[in-house]
């Protein structure tokens, strides 16, 4: 019940804050109209970055909606995520497929049922890059973000904020990232060159200062498989 209430509150907040992004996801061009300096963003995002100081883990649920070019209805998925400082991110999709994507600086693990595929960073340097972007977005590491992206956005009138990222170096199909939040990161919008738009809403986010337990850690290691 408590969870439901919080979800409702969150949705309510979202509706209030961003009337433009109501039902279906669509590109929010306005944030990119405001180039920002790293100093200004640090000030604007203080409410979100303060709880992250010393945070050992961030966990929560997510809902993803992907609007593809030429496809009439969006593709929806949901699940949960776990970010462990200095370790990596585990992204667990529950609907419509059970699958898990684990990104660390050393490797990428894709789990589907009993099947596990491990790609080491040495084989795929781009992976390290992806890991770094994810870590930087979750922990709002402005130095890293600034080295990879041109920065846009700032604080909104109601205390919430929007952060826009444009890759300095075209590395793939993603051309823009928008992060919205208040006390923490709440929504990530990714725009691709074709106009495909991915919107990820983060829910029930819990920030913990405690060291992660063994079960959490286990997600990030790949048992060596000997078929």
């Amino acid at each position: 019940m408590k969870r439901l209430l919080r979800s409702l509150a969150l949705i309510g907040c979202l509706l209030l804050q961003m009337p433009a992004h109501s039902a279906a996801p669509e590109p929010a061009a306005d944030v990119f109209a405001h180039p920002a300096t790293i100093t200004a963003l640090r000030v604007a995002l203080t409410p979100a970055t303060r709880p992250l100081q010393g945070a050992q883990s961030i966990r929560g649920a997510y809902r993803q909606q992907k609007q593809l070019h030429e496809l009439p209805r969006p593709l929806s998925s949901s699940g949960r995520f776990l970010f462990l400082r200095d370790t990596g991110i585990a992204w667990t999709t529950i609907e419509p497929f059970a699958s898990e994507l684990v990104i660390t600086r050393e490797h990428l693990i894709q789990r589907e049922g009993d099947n596990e595929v491990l790609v080491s960073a040495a084989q795929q340097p781009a992976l390290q890059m992806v890991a770094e972007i994810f870590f930087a977005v979750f922990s709002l590491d402005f130095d890293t973000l600034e080295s990879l992206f041109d920065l846009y956005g700032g604080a909104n009138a109601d205390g919430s904020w929007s952060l826009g990222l444009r890759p300095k170096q075209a590395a793939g199909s993603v051309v823009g990232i928008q992060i919205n939040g208040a006390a923490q990161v709440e929504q990530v919008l990714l725009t691709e060159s074709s106009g495909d738009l991915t919107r990820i809403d983060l829910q029930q986010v819990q920030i913990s200062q405690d060291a992660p337990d063994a079960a959490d850690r286990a997600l990030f290691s790949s048992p060596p498989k000997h078929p």
Partner: protein
Amino acid sequence: MSKPSAPMLRFGLWLTAVLALLASSGIWLLPQLRIETDITAMLPQTAPDAVVEQSLDRFAAAAGRRNVYLIEADAFASARAAAAAFTAALRQSPAFVEVEFERGLDAKALDAVLGPYRHTLLADADRAALASGHAQALADTALRALYSPAGLMRARPFGEDPLNLYGDYLQSLVAAPGALQLRDGVLASTLDGRVSVMVTATLKDSPFALGAQTGASAAVAAASAAARSAAAEVRVYNSGVLQHAVANSERAKREISVFGSLSLLGVILVCLYCFGSLRPLALVLMTLAVGTLASISAVQWLFGQIHLLALVFGSSLIGVAVDYAIHFFSDRFRGVRPWSGQIAVDHVGTAILVGMLTTSLGYLALIVPPFPGLRQMAVFSVVGVLSAGLTALLAFPLLAGHSVRPPPVALAAAARWLSLRRPPQGRSAALAALLLIGAAAFGLSRLSFVDDVRALQSSPAPLLAQEAAVQQRLGGGTDTRFFLVEGSDTEALLQHEEQLRTRLDRLVADQQLAGYLALSRAVPSAARQRQNRALLATEVYGDNGVLRPLLAGLGYADDSYQRLQADFAAADDRILSLPQWLDSALAGPYRGLWVGTTDRGVASVVALIGVRDLDTLRATAAGLDSARLIDRVADISTVLAHYRRIALFGLAAALLAIAVVVALRYGLRACPRLLLAPVGGCVLTLATLGLLGIPGNLFTVLALLLVLGLGVDYTVFLREGAASRQVTIMAISAAAVTTVLAFGTLSASATPFIRSLGLAALLGVAYTWLIAIALSAAPQPRVPQ
């Protein structure tokens, strides 16, 4: 005026030759003197054929001109700023033609060149999946990726490349094994919380060109300073042949001046002490000047250049060439009055002539191995010895004056003592000889030979540490070994590469190899591109392929599928060609792999990264006619071992040749006694090295050839000067001191093979002198004097 005397004629001949030498060297030689510093230019050309040589030239030369700099700082932003400052400063220098910092090699640029061919290019893994009927698995993965963040790591949006096959191909192309990553347009690597940004710079000239070295070193120093002032806590790591070449040539220059000065100082002191006046010293120095000039001229004329290490070796010539002048002036000690140069020549002329010839024979042995460096050393030394000897014989009689001085008291006393010494006789002599033979045999039994070329070259430790630091940050470097692949044309070549790659992929999977770079990874053979198309046509785009159900399941209208199918069909005749790829700005690191047109067709290099086990690698290429593993280090080591064995036979041959000269002059019966000193010197040298645990090598054996040539001089002088033994002992002792000094300095060289040569020659000359004195000190007891 009467007919000029014979001495006048000889002096005239010598003067003419010296004037001609001065004129020719002043006008022609010195302006075009070229000093070579490439240590590998000393080594034999081991390439078994022209194509291999071409690939070595192309691949190794390109690698030699390329320098990697890592600019490290606490954070990426400061490392990048420092690297930018470094790059800007380095670009000011004309010594570098290309300084790369921001990489054009991004996905967009790749896409621009390769995009049109995306329907024929497949990553190895995807091709294997399609070929084994696992297309559905690719479609499933693509579908799942749409619902997770994995779907965001794609080169093109879903609608253009639903299975992300083209994305996978691009990924396999930029995926260089190692720790580098593209970040904000530059290549960066992180280690222990510090970030390094890579800058690569290509030299305009060979890193061994002395002029280029000076310019490039100054530019790198200035750029490093610029990097350090651009941000805090910046460190610059260098990697490349340049810094080693600079260190080696600076070291060689330092050694030439130090060794030369020491030898010269020794000569001056010996001359002043023994002869007590300036005239002999002046003549000795003149001899050295003539010898050095003649040597440099001869080498430059014959080889078109002179190697720095030949000059280092040549600095020992000072101690050898001076011997003849010493023998000449020692004749004054006999106390003949009135003394003249002509009297000296009559007395020691034959000894000088025989000594000159035997020493030259010793040096000539250096010409036999096909080492350009050794041949230069041989020519340098032979010419130096001959011109010094001839100067003593032809010019001294007229220039030596008539003054006679007694030898210094201490020298005379020592020589008298030595000349009166009787070696132990009878039982004690037998015992001493037995002990000596026993010790020699023990030493020889412990002697080992090490022919590894890596042990014969060295770089200063700080440079090696830098190199290791760079390798650690890059996550491994390109191996010096590589595969050379050949084909009658480009298509055949690429197909041969693909055969080799199938085997290399297995090694990579077994972690025997960290990775490799091959042209065919970027540009598959036309046959394989057609194969790829055929696979895509049936498994993906065809009516029964996996694409249609995938799109339909997601809710796409059939139009979308038909558009993709039409795109695929429209690209039917497009085949990416190798020249097209190589001409594009993207080929970058791949361009060095292309050897080009050869006598047999075309050739390319497959570069290896992180080789675990050499034997496994060798076995990998077994049975492939068109691919060969090239291992130049091992090849050179094999050649060194081969010539070391040949040189040992050469030592025997030189001994025989010298024995013939000695026998012709002194008779067969005198031979054993005359040859015992140089032979004994060689044996004791090897035994000493064995006892000290210092391994021998080709250069040790070559030094012994010199010892043979020099050592025979001593016995020849003692034999020729039997009538005035004391004077001869003084002469050969003074000569031995200068020679030991010369080789003693060489044995302090930082270049291992010069050190080997110097040490063996030092020991050999010292032993030979001892034995010669000991033997001559015992006049045949039954022959009354």
